[in-house]
Structures are given as C-alpha cells and as structure tokens.
C-alpha cells in the first residue's frame, strides 16, 4: 500500500504539471505580445520539466520497466489523475494567467513542504521546483494585477475568469487515503493544510488588482479519480497522436 500510495501521489503531481504545461504551450506563437511568447513557454518548460522528473520517479517506484513517455502518452483518460483546473481550455489571457496563479499558489507551499520530505527523490525535485514556482506566482500575479486594475474591459475579463475558475479551487485541497498516507509518512503535507497560505497569496494579489474573492459556488471535483471534463479527451488526442499512430516507435 505504501508504494501504491506513493505512486498514486507522484502521478497526480506529474499529471497536473504535464497537462498544465501542455495547455500553456498552446499559447506559443499566439500571445498578446512577443514578451509573453517567451514567458509562457518558459513556464510551460518548467512544468514539463517537473512532470518528466516526476514520471521518471513514478517509473522507478512502479518498477515494471515503464518509461516517462509510457506514463505521459500511453494511459487511458481515466488513468490520468490531474485536477480539473489544469485541463480546462485556455480561454482568454486573463483566464490563462489566473489559472496559472492559482496552480502556482497551490504548489508553492506544497513544494516548500516536499523540499523537507522524508522522500529524498521528491525533496530533490522540490528544491528546484520551489524556485520556479515562485517565479510563476510573480509573473502570473503581476498580470492579474495589471488586468484587474487596467481598463474597464480587462477588469471585466479578469472578474469573469475569477468566476469561471472558482468551482475548481476546492479540488486542489481535497484529501483521501493517498494524501493521508503521504502525510503520515512525512512525504508530503495534506493538501488541506496548504489552503490558508493559498488564500493569503491570492488575497494579497486580489487586493492590489481590485478583484473580489470568489464566492463559494458548487465545487467541481473528479480529476483525482480520473473523472474528467469534456476538454480532456481532445487534449489527449493531440498529446498522444504520434504514440498512438506509430505504436512502439522510438522518437
């Protein structure tokens, strides 16, 4: 069980990072300004790099000879356990940046705690990731402020993004037998314990952006057990296209 829980936990993290990195990479070449055509791929590269390290570790934990690419490309939709927030279509730039801020504000205290984990491999991954995620908060946070406190149109769009993403926040902090096992083993904290810091990070930025904190709507959940939204299948169709078309080929 201990190994199974660790594998499940590492795959959740890996899937979150891969799917968000994939979404972010869709912007490359289509950003509102050239500077963002450089900044968004930067963040996507961080996320994909973290996903790779995590999948490699998952392969090692599982010990069945699977590779990072087997995990990333050759599972079925129900086997991906990323949260619903990261798989959502990009929407406009306000939606993309707010989603980035939320995910980074969730991961920063997570990586921070994992850096002191009893699991040396995860601690090593976290040590690098914690610096990267701090930059993501800064970059996305600055955009949320600029857009929230920019023009009338940008403020409306930003507030719309706040409303659209609100149902997907709670799932980040859900616990179950996997997170309980991680907390007990001193490997990773219960996500619920990170909520206060997430709220603080977001509240500070929202205050500067003149944005209202989201009201508590009906929370959407299901990603951690592989129950995804309709966008996920199309994302996987793109992601897996080559591996499915040419089974067994090495690229």
């Amino acid at each position: 069980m201990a190994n199974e829980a660790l594998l499940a936990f590492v795959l959740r993290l890996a899937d979150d990072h891969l799917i968000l990195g994939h979404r972010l990479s869709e912007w490359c070449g289509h950003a509102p300004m050239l500077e963002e055509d450089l900044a968004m791929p930067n963040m996507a590269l961080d996320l994909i790099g973290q996903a790779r390290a995590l999948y490699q570790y998952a392969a090692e934990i599982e010990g069945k000879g699977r590779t990072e690419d087997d995990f990333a490309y050759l599972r079925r939709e129900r086997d991906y356990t990323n949260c619903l927030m990261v798989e959502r279509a990009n929407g406009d730039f306000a939606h993309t940046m707010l989603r980035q801020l939320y995910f980074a504000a969730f991961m920063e205290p997570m990586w921070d705690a994992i850096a002191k984990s009893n699991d040396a491999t995860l601690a090593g991954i976290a040590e690098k990731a914690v610096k990267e995620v701090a930059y993501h908060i800064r970059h996305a946070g600055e955009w949320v402020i600029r857009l929230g406190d920019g023009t009338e149109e940008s403020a409306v769009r930003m507030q719309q993004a706040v409303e659209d993403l609100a149902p997907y926040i709670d799932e980040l902090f859900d616990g179950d037998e996997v997170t309980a096992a991680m907390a007990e083993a001193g490997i990773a904290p219960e996500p619920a314990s990170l909520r206060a810091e997430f709220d603080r990070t977001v509240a500070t930025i929202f205050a500067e952006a003149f944005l209202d904190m989201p009201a508590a709507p009906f929370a959407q959940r299901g990603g951690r057990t592989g129950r995804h939204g309709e966008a996920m299948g199309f994302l996987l169709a793109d992601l897996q296209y080559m591996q499915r078309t040419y089974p067994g080929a090495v690229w």
Partner: protein
Amino acid sequence: MYSQGLIGAKTETTEDESFLAAFQARIDAEEKIEPNDPMPVGYRRTLIRQIGQHAHSEIVGMLPEGNWITRAPSLKRKAALLAKVQDEGGHGLYLYSAAETLGVSREQMTEELLSGKAKYSSIFNYPTQTWADIGAIGWLVDGAAIMNQIPLCRCSYGPYARAMIRVCKEESFHQRQGYEIMMTLARGTPDQKELAQDALNRWWWPSLMMFGPHDGDSQHGDQSMAWKIKRFTNDELRQQFVDSTVPQAQYLGLTLPDPDLKWNDERGHYDFGAIDWDEFWRVVKGGGTMNKERIAARKKAWDDGEWVREAVLAHGEKRKARREAAKMAAE
C-alpha cells in the same frame, strides 16, 4: 526597448559626394556603423527592410513549428521543440530591437507585416504536415538560415552584426537538433524512414529557394555587397549549402529529390538541377499553401491581444498617477 529613444530621431543627411565617399571609406576600412553615426538614407532603408524581414521571419516561423508542440512524440522532443520555438521568438525580439536603433518602431513593423507590406521568408508558407517536418526544418531551413546569417555577423551595421552572433549560435544548435531528429527517423522503423524521406522531398527545393533569386535577377544585391551588409551572393551561398548538405543526406541514407545532382570534379562543387522559379514567385506573391493562414494567425494574436496591451498601458498610467498623488499628499 533600449533603443526606443532613437525611434523617430532626426535621420536626414546631406548626401553630397564627399559624404558618400567618407561613408564608403569607413565601410571599406571595416569600421562598424553605429546607430548615432550619419549614414546614407538608402543604407538605413535597406537595413530597416532587411532586419525587419528577418525579424518577421522569426516570428512567422514560430507558427509552422508551433503546429507540432502539442503533438510532439515524446516529452524530451516536446520540451526541445518548445524551447526552440521560444528561441525563434527571442531572435525576433532582438532583431526588432536592432531595427529600432534605425528609427523604426516594433509596432510600425508589426503593422507592415500584418498589412502585407513587409515580407517574411517564404519558406514558412509551406505546411508542416508530419513530425518529420520538424526534423527537416531544423536541418535544412535552419541550416540554410545559418549559411545566410554567418556572414551577417560581420555586417557593417554594428547592432545587426552583434545580434547575429547570438542568433547564429542558437540556430546552429537548432540545426544539430533537427538533424538528430532526422537521424532517429532514418534509423527507425520503415514508417519512420518514409516520414523522413517524404519531409526531405517536400523541404529540399524550398530550402534552396531561401537564398533568393539568381544573382543576375536579384534586386538588392550589388549595393548591399558594396555596403558590406551582404558578403556573399545568393548563388554563392546556395552552392555552399548544397555542398555541405549532400554528404549529410548521404549519411542519413536519404535521397535528395534531384536527379541532376552530382559532384563536378572540375568545379569542385555539386551541380544541381534547375530551381522552379515560378513556384518561388508564386509563393512570394501570396500563392503558397499557408500564406493566408500565417498572416491570419499573426493578426488574430495581435487583435486578440489588443485589450491586454491596452490594459498594460492603462495600469501603468494609474500607478504613475497614484505615485504622484501620494507624493503631493506627502509634501
């Protein structure tokens, strides 16, 4: 931008014979011309056109390769391609900056691109149909770009020459990466080898066209050579490219799609078949498969981003106003 102070700066010169002779003497002495130096209007105009086209090519060039980022076949390839396309954007950014030192703004250049007034490299009007195209573009298109650009590191205009040094380093990395993709395919399954050969068949001739018309038909050649903006002619560079690429194709075990290609002992070069200049001009003039889509994609990104750029300006103004108000209140 570090150069924004130069946009719209006074650039007129009195181009009498002694001015032109003195300028040419500096060029002949291999002195670098810098942004604040007096220069003939034609020299400035040529550079703005060339650097602008070059920058636009980097930006439009992000699209065909970007087309495969979400479908790259492995995580390693996905990360490498994303980083590569990001590099192209970076090249665009510092080339626009280099052009800005000549007094033209990035916005102005962007508008010229979107209106169709400014050109970009025609090669990007071909579609990327398969993953192998990512290998072929890296190997051939970046390879041809390097042939064109290495001499530009010695271009007489300082900011352009210095920008090209960094661009060339990155392009040469891209070319090796592209060749390595082709190598993996060529050594892979029969399906993969077929992908590689098909990509080579489609990208070979357009790559040769990247060097531009034959020397006799080239519009800007002689004056650019005299000003040492260009160092080699189109045909010289094209020959150099063919000579270095043929053995690379042989090593891959792929066939170049040119029955007339053969080594000429007397010339010490490869002879190659006739380029289809009708196709070249058709694509230059807008008749390529992707001309419309490329500009439409750039225009969509620009238009969709307008509210974002406006918000940046508005937010900046608000901050400034608040700072000033706070200062007044404190006094």
